[in-house]
């Protein structure tokens, strides 16, 4: 197996490198990809189209928003998939057998506990900032959502899974995950209902408190980012909770 693998890898590597002659140099601003009209358009017209200085966010949530919607769906699928695979439902309750993990979970260190108590609100606040400020600086729904999810995971690590689940029970995070996608696709459907193509946010100016189509785009992007954040944070926590407790959602690590 090792040899087969090695040969396959060398072969693949050789194949990948064989095209090097034809490759643009590193950092070449005029490579076909970098100088293509598409890329130029994003850089030049983003601000005009939607007034969002962060082109990545604009491309992500607007130009290629369709991709991003499915990305959110991918995240949702990951969570649902893990639940479908791991989750022990109405099965043998976890408390039936003594779980050593559970005992360890009870003896929480006071330093860790206190630090986390202080850290978590800041973390969550920062998460909201990252989500909201994605238009102007690196950030957005995915990044903020992950930070938000991490704050719950931190709770679970510091205090045990059960207290974390008290704050964000299973029913709620599943609902949150679905609602996130509903928000995202809801923006698209709203555009459909107003007679434009799916995710053509410009028409939403009649619904949103905006002055023109560009601002409507900007605001809608924020809206879908919030949807993304919902799903991502919920699913991040769901993945952790299920993996950490072998699907029993009790005890945890």
């Amino acid at each position, binding site marked *: 197996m090792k040899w087969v693998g090695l040969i396959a890898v060398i072969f*693949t590597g050789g194949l990948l490198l064989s095209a090097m002659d034809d490759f643009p140099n590193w950092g070449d601003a005029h490579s076909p990809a970098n100088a293509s009209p598409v*890329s130029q358009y994003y*850089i030049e017209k983003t601000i005009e189209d939607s007034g969002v200085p962060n082109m990545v966010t604009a491309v992500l949530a607007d130009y290629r928003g369709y991709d991003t919607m499915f990305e959110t769906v991918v995240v949702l699928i990951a969570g649902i998939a893990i639940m479908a695979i*791991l989750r022990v439902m109405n099965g043998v309750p976890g408390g039936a057998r003594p779980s050593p993990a559970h005992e360890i979970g009870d003896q929480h260190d006071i330093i860790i506990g206190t630090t986390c108590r202080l850290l978590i609100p800041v973390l969550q606040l920062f998460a909201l900032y990252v989500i909201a400020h994605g238009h102007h600086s690196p950030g957005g729904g995915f990044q903020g959502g992950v930070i938000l999810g991490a704050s719950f995971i931190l709770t679970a690590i510091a205090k045990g899974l059960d207290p974390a689940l008290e704050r964000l029970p299973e029913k709620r995070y599943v609902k949150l995950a679905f609602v996130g996608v509903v928000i995202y696709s809801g923006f698209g459907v709203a555009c459909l209902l107003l007679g434009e193509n799916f995710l053509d946010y410009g028409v939403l100016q009649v619904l949103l408190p905006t002055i023109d189509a560009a601002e409507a785009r900007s605001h809608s992007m924020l809206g879908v980012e919030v949807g993304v954040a919902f799903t991502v944070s919920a699913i991040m926590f769901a993945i952790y909770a299920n993996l950490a407790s072998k699907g029993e959602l009790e005890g945890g690590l």
Partner: protein
Amino acid sequence: MSEITSQYLIDHFNFWVAVVLMMIGLYAMITKNNLIKKLIGMSIFQTAIILFYVSAGVKEGATIPILEHHVAETEQVEAGEHAEGHSTTKASSSHEVHAINPDDYSNPLPHVLMLTAIVVGVATLGVALAVSQVIYKNYGTLEEDEILAKIKAAENDG
């Protein structure tokens, strides 16, 4: 010699790094016996692809694809004025002066694409970890050869 070095190594060093990382990951995925190590290989592989994409969007001397704020504001004003004059902003063929030079900003598209790839990588990893937990529950091991031996034994029994 130095020309060849520069042509094949220096000018494309990002590419070399990405490919070497990819192959490390791929090798681990194919040959490692432990399922978790396979997954680590998978992560390396996917991350190397991300590196490959992002490095392709780099422009020498360019900054991140976020407009500087003052540029953004003036542009926004201009865009706003423009919008008032015409009914649509989207399809307008611009006759205004561009303060934005595309060479100053790195290509945003690979970043966007790789955000997707990251998400996909996370999702795949999560599902794969869940599956390996189930495997562990069923077979009590994460070593591939042991699992296969157990499957064979079970087959021979039944």
